[in-house]
Each structure stands twice: as C-alpha cells, then as structure tokens.
C-alpha cells in the first residue's frame, strides 16, 4: 500500500517535472550532443552534413587568425569584467550591510540594473549614453575633458563594453550581502579584543568567512563573461577593427551569416572547453583561499 502511494507520488512529481525535463532534453541536451557531430562536419545548415573529422578544429587553431583575435578579446573581456564586478559588488554590499534609514530602498536601487541583465534595451541605452554626443561625453565636456569616442576607438571599446556588465552587479551584491549577514559578530568582537583594526578584520575575518560566496560568484561571472554575446552584438557588432569580436559573436556570424554551422559548432566546443578549463583552474586554486565552515 505504502509502495503504491510512493509510486503514485513519484509519478506526480515526474509529471510536474516533465515540462522542464522535455525542454532540457530537446532544447539543451540534443543540441549539445548533436553539436559534437556537427563540429566534425562540413555543415551549412542547408544541406546534409559531410563528415570531415577534426578539420574544423585544425583550421580554427592553424588558419583562422580571426579566431585567435576573438579568443584574446574574450579573455580580455573576462579579465576586465570579473574582478571589477566582484570588487564593485562586494564594496556596495559592505556599504549596504549597515542598518541605515531607507537601506531597503537603496538595496533595491542597486539591484535594479541586474533585473535588465542581457537585455537589448539596456545595450542600446549604453550605446546611446557612450556615443560622441551622448550623456557621458556631455558630462566629460562639462568638466573640460574632450569628447572620447568610446565605441569608435579600438582601445576604449572593449573596456566600455565591459563596464555594462560590471554595472549589472546586483545579483553578486545580494549574495555578498547575505553572506556578510552570516558572519558571526563574535568573530569581529574577538578580533577587536586581539587588537585588529577595521581593515585587518575585513581581510582576516570577513574575506575568509565569505570566501565560498566569492568563489561561487567568480565562477558564475567567468562563465557569463566567456559567453558574452548580446552587448557585443547590439552595441559594436564586434568592431571597431574586431576589438570586441568575442567568441560568442564569431560563433553566431559563422553559423548564421556565413552558413558554416559545423565550424560554428567547433567554436562553441572551444568556448565550452574554455569555460570548463577556467572552472577547473579556479577549483584547483580554491583549496588555497576558500574556507568552508564545515571543514575541520
């Protein structure tokens, strides 16, 4: 009787889960698996794929100079974005971790940009703000600084694009805020008794206590940054002079503009390997700086 009840409950659970499971199988797992095969084929998307072995991968690394530029742009973008976003969100979380009047409204305000994450509208807003006749240049001109061609200059385009991602620091901030609340006050008190100042307390108590969250945020942000597409596509289209032509955009152009779906699949696998590689390195480094409360 009990087994039958359990089985019935399980069936119901699977029924509720079915939309997600079907979606995952059809929209994620199938493309994931089939892209391995396509990456080994000459496939235009219009005719049947023709198996060519590892040619796409060999071409990517030996002949495609654009791929090397894209890879470098993607790594640069990640290096600009992740540390800045983590530092920014941690600093704001520290500021908001105080019981002040109207703190709830402040937290909401700082979180707002993240609600628009990855949206086309925000990318367009950024483009307009940083144009030669945009708001940012108008403010710079007010204080006597000459107009900067943020998205027209290959040297400034990528950092400006990164600033959009950094601006959307809300989700990391909320996690840091939650982590900061969990740090026992007794630890700060003990540190104070031992003669530690605010800075020493921050580095010796706060950082180790919230290190698992820092670690989690770094991984999440790295994964996001390596897959950037929307802002590069909408704001700069990869320019100027390919300075913002990141791998996600190259993949899109190869697949949907040049009808090289097989080649684009190979690029997507390189991105995947890059993401896994970065993650593994971070995991390997974590034993030196991440402190888990349940560790002896």
């Amino acid at each position, binding site marked *: 009787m009990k087994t039958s009840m359990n089985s019935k409950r399980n069936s119901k659970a699977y029924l509720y889960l079915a939309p997600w499971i079907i979606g995952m199988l059809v929209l*994620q797992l*199938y*493309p*994931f*698996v*089939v*892209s391995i095969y*396509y*990456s080994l084929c000459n496939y*235009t*998307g*219009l*005719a*049947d*794929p023709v198996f060519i072995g590892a040619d796409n991968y060999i071409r990517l690394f030996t*002949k495609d100079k654009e791929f090397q530029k894209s890879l470098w742009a993607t790594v640069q973008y990640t290096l600009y974005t992740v540390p800045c976003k983590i530092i920014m969100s941690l600093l704001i979380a520290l500021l908001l971790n105080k019981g002040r009047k109207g703190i709830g409204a402040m937290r909401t305000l700082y979180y707002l940009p993240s609600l628009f994450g990855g949206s086309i509208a925000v990318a367009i807003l950024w*483009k307009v703000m*940083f*144009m*030669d*006749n945009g708001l940012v240049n108008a403010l710079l001109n007010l204080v006597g600084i000459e107009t900067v*061609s*943020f*998205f*027209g*200059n*290959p040297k400034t385009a990528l950092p400006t694009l990164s600033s959009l991602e950094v601006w959307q620091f809300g989700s990391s901030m909320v996690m840091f805020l939650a982590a900061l609340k969990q740090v026992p006050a007794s630890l700060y008190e003990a540190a104070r008794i031992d003669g530690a100042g605010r800075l020493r307390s921050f580095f010796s108590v706060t950082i180790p206590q919230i290190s698992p969250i820092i670690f*989690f945020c770094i*991984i999440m942000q790295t*994964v996001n940054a*390596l*897959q950037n597409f929307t802002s590069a596509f909408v704001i700069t*289209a990869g*320019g*100027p*002079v*390919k300075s913002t032509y990141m791998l*996600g955009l190259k*993949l*899109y*152009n190869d*697949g*949907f*503009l*040049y*009808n090289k*779906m097989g080649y*684009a*699949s190979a690029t*997507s696998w390189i*991105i*995947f390997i890059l*993401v*896994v590689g970065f*993650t593994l390195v971070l*995991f390997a480094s*974590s034993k030196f700086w991440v402190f*888990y409360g*349940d*560790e002896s």
Partner: protein
Amino acid sequence: MKKRQVVSLILSAVMAVSVLSGCGGKEAEKTPAADGGAETTEGTGETPQEPSGEDVTLRFSWWGGDARHEATLAVIEAFEKEHPNIHIEAEYSSYDGYSEKKTTEFASGTAPDIFQIETGLGPEYYKNGVLYNLSETSFDWSNFDENFLIQNGQFGSGSQYAIPTGQAGSAIIVNKTLADKIGIDFTQQYDWDQFIEWGKMVQDYDPECYLISANTSYAMPFFVRAWCRQKNGKPIMNEDLTLNMTEEQFTECFTLIKELYDNKVCAPASYKAPFGDQDQEDPNWIAGKYVCAIGYTSSADVLSAANDTVEYMAGNMPVMADAVNDGWVNDCPQYIGVYAKTQHPAEAALFLDYFYNSDEAAKLLGTVRSVPPTEKARNICEEMDALNPLTKQSVDVSMQYNGFSDSGRTTSSEVTAILVDAYDNVSYGQMEPAEAAAEVMELLNDYMEVNK
C-alpha cells in the same frame, strides 16, 4: 567537501552547455533544393501551375521601416479582397537579424512562402537552392525591362529566381549649398584622385568640415568593389572561385583609402563607427558639415530629410582615367522570392503578380522600396507626385553609367566581411595598405580553397 566540489563542477558545466545549444538544429530535409541548387524547379518543362481556388494561407516576410510595413500590409489587404480564398500572413521586422532568421528557417524547412531578399545574398540563396523558379509560374513579366531582369534576379541561370523590388544604385548625395560655397562641382566627370584635392579644399575652408561622410558598410563597396570593376572590368572574385584583383591592385586601392583618411577627406573612422550605416543620425551631417555622403539612391530621402535647411543634388560618380568599365551599376535595393519548398507556388506567383503589376499595388506601395522596377509603376508614382525628386535624380545619375553588377561570390557575406575588415584596418591606420592587401589575398585564397 569533495562531493560538493564535484556537484558544483557539474553544475558549472551544465551552465556552460547552454552556449552550445544554439549550434544544434534539425537537419535540413534532403530535397533537390537543399543540395542541388538551381535544378529544383528549373527545366522541368511543365506548364505553369494554376491557382487551385482552394483556401490557401501564405506567409510573406520582409524587413523595412513603418512606411514600408503600412504600405505592404495595405497591398496584402487589397489582394485578399480580390482573392478571398488566399490569406497572407505578414511577418515583418527591421533588418536586424532578418537574414540570420532566414538561415535558420531554411535549415529547418520553415521559411515563409514569399520573402524579401537582400541583394547581395540573392546569388547565395540561388546557389543553395532555396528559391523557386518563378519563370515557371504564371507571373506576367511584360511590364519589366528584359535586360533589367537578366541583370537582377536570374543569377546567370536564364530563369527568374527573384524579382527586383525597385531601381537603385550607388549614389553621392551632395550638400549643394556647402559645395557651392567651397567651389566644388559634382556635375563634372572626375576621377578618384579628385576626392583628395577637393578634400583639401574643404579642410582649408573649415577644418571642422569634411568632403565625405563615409560609413564602412557603404564605403567598402564604393571604394573597393567599384574600384575593381573599373580597373579590371570584372568583379573581385569570379563565380568559378578565381580572383581578378591582384595583391598589387589591392595595395593601390587601399593606398587611395589611406590617403582619403590621412588627408581628412573622409571623417575619421573612429568618429563614424558608432553611427553604423545611419549617416543621417550623425550630428555633423545634420549640422551640414559634410559636402557629401556616399551610399545608395535609397538613402537620398532620409539624408535630405535629416537637414532640410540646405539644397541637395545627386553628384556624378568617380571614374578612373584608364577605366576598363565605368563600374557604376543600376541594380535593385532588394529582391522578393518564393521559397523552393512552398506548397503553393501558383498562389504565391498570383500574389506577386498583383504586388508588382497591379495599379492598386503601385499606388499603395509608392516608393517604399525605392523607385519602382516597372515603367508602369514609375508612371503611377510620378502622377501621384510620390517620387522624391532627389531619389529620382540619383537614380537618373546612376543610369548614366554602364557598369555591371558584381553580385555573386564578391557580394557573399564572407567575402564582404573580409573586405570590410580590410577597409577598417586601413581607415583606422591599423595596417599599411600593402599589409592589408597581403592579408586580404590570404583570406580570399583561403575562402576559395574551402569553397571549391
């Protein structure tokens, strides 16, 4: 701890998987169209299919602005009134992502029955066999100029696979008020080097002014493809994947481009980049600080509307002294074609016949797709006073020339991207002309090798 790490790692990997999702897709159904190219409907020798009279729903997709959307929807409505058994589902948007969407629709076999086609992509679509042979339908071609059809939409096949939507060509839209003040005469015939001399005159007149407003998307076809057509009388790349342009010629062409930017004939590339191909949004154009903008006849109305305080004219085009051919061509702004896998080719042709040949459609469409492609529709527009005089003048100027279309391999998306990158590298001063020429040769040779 270990277990948690492993779980976290797996979760991270699952997140990363999402990036790969975009690259999969349903395999294209194998049809003669999918791998055989043009033979899909060509040469069957069958008599044109007649509409069945049954209830039919067709999908029609196009891109454009509000005026084009409203006019096209009005034509659809008028057609449906005349043919109550045929329902047209309209799918319209801006150009952003339009061609990419078509690629996925072709791959999944779900493309609309009728769709607008970007001119440069027409030959690629034809080669990939996604276009229906319209010569085998009952479409009435009698209102079109035969040579115009041969040049536009046949892709060398002898059959009509796409119908040009209008007449268009490269154009130089001149701020005549400023040009007259400086003493620049665009009505004379001149060569490419003249740009440099005029550019210097403009800088002497006012260092904040430039001779040319040039965005990369329009400037590359203007300064590279047209230059090659004049130099060699041939396109940069032939259909049989051979090159007509040599490395020395590329160097010569890129040297001209470098001089245009070094001498401030063109506005700096870094300044123009954020505006994309929307020259009319450039505050310097609105303020009347350019003598001219290079682009297409279809740009004439938006450019002139952006600053109506000055007088405009369509200038003559540059032709090199030893040109084999004047290189400037009057072609079309886009095509409309029918999907090779449509279930209702006869009904699609019936709609297109109404769209192109009926008086009602000509009145409703006006010039929303540039100057109409048939004389009949042009006359109707003139009677309605719907033709923008500047657009008409720019089309008239482009018709003075006897160039040929290089539409084909040279205009394919990948070759275009290679040439645009080279133009960018030279205009930004990132590469010397010889260096850019060597890189272009390497990339074009690689493209030819892969596609052979």
